[in-house]
């Protein structure tokens, strides 16, 4: 496991702002624009300390990514926090059927984000 954080988010502005604030705090960051890119990244790199995962994404959605990870023994242990603009009920429903460890609702606030990251990295 590395001390790198993987951001999986299709909206470039959101992805870049998450990267900016995490790098300000001295974290190493990798980016993926959808679930498929994230799986590809995980195959060729050491597991990150945390994945920040959006749900609504083209190619492979967050929910599909969670399902893929759940059935992969090598990836099941990675900590995943869902970062979504969907309603709390919907996000909690997705989380409960997955191995995700936390939820951050958009618009994401800086303090809870840094607290969540500090817990796993």
């Amino acid at each position, binding site marked *: 496991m590395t001390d790198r954080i993987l951001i999986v988010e*299709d*909206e*470039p*502005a*959101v992805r*870049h*702002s*998450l990267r*900016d*604030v995490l790098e*300000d705090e001295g974290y190493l960051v990798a980016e993926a*624009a959808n679930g498929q890119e994230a799986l590809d990244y995980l195959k060729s790199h050491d597991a990150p300390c945390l994945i920040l995962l959006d*749900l*609504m*994404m*083209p*190619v492979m*959605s967050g*929910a599909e990514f969670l399902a893929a990870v759940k059935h992969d023994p090598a990836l099941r242990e990675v900590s995943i926090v869902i970062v979504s*603009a*969907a*309603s709390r009920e919907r996000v909690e429903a997705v989380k409960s059927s997955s191995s995700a460890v936390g939820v951050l609702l*958009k*618009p*994401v*606030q*800086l*303090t809870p*984000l840094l607290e969540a990251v500090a817990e796993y990295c």
Partner: protein
Amino acid sequence: MDRKAETKDAADSLRLLMESVKDYAIYLLDSIGHVMTWNMGAERLYGYKGDEILGKHFSTFYPEEKVREGWPDQELRLVVRDGRFEDEGWRIRKDGSRFLANVVITALFDRDGTLRGFGKVTRDVTERFTSAERALVESEARFRALADNIAQLAWMADTTGNLFWYNKRWFDYTGTTLDEMQGWGWKRVQHPEHLERVVGKWTRALADGRPWEDTFPLRAKEGTYRWFLSRAVPIHDEAGKVKLWFGTNTDVTDELETQETLRRAVHARDVFLSIASHELRTPLTPLSLQIQSLLRLAERSGSDLPTVKVKDKLVKATQQAAHLERLVANLLDVSRLGENRLRLEYEELDVATLVREIAERVRPEFEAAGSPLTVVARDEVKGSWDRLRLDQVISNLLGNALKYGRGKPIEVEVRRLDGEVLVSVRDHGIGIAAEDQERIFGRFERAVSPESYGGFGLGLWIARQLVDAMGGKISVQSKPGQGATFTVAFPDGGRRAA
């Protein structure tokens, strides 16, 4: 006097005698039942003058329900079989009133056995009825008048569930006859998908003697189906035993359709609200993250703020604020377009130049997404256009091209063809199935799941409304997996041409 003259005299006398009989209707029918002669008694009894009724079919005198059952023709068949037939039953006068008739019909044959017609003797025996019986008949007549004129289909069934009577509207709607509908014949106008349930519930109601209710489609004579709310109540005798069932079918198709339209509208609104809140929240994340990290930076750095970093964060926050503003403007457009409150502001401009300007504005975003943008615009295309709205249409199409064709090249072309100005935006992305190509121009519609691609589902709807308002047309050519080309066509010269 010779024998022939004697016979003629006797026949004349007989005819005179028959014509003068006042208390009996005596008349002849041809072999299929048309009235051939009419005496004074017939005129008095039925109320028709000879010239009004001669040549008409004798079923005119029968109540409608008897005609529907085919009773008049059945009578003639029995007369032919037995030579003579006597019947008592209700007949109708010209003014619609009823009387109880005693009828004797005799078949008239030639010497060689060919049927020539029928002799009919009818008299009014209503007086034989007690006033109670007459009241019953009148109440029955009133019931039928009511039953045949209500908006519902109505019917009666015996205690075993055999339907033995239907009102006129049932037959008008279904185009069936009583013969076809007797007993359980109504099953043939039921929809096959509902038949089993309907029969099951009806059978249980019969067994329990409890009121029955169900809603199901019934087939009209045209072969189409409409929905009916159907109810039946058991009618009890003095001892409390079920005597018969009285049922109605009320057409509720329009109500159901209104409910469905309403339900869809509410659903579309809910979907839109959830998408809108998602879309508006998304740019709020980078906006508030940049501002909060700026605040954190300020708290940490004290008086020596790193100017470059601060400026960078402020630029990004401003970009997100602008993005939010565009989203809100889109929402306002929807309400304006929906109410036809759009006002166009025309100016002289060159479409090719405008397209190049837009391309330069969005180029950095396209390059960052791995989608190089090419503009092909050889000719000058001058005319009178609304710059902002034209910009909005082309930006919307470019935005979609990038959204669905990310990572692959995108081309914009401006050209003149046959008196039209064509602006095409081509991507090489996921493409659109033929069955979705019209739908995607609808409000809140999209060809893909909102789970995969965000957005209001309004871009193409807005584009089409704007293009319509500017007198143009928008179309799409695409195949799944092979990208899409959206083309906007305007009259050359813009408003000048119109």
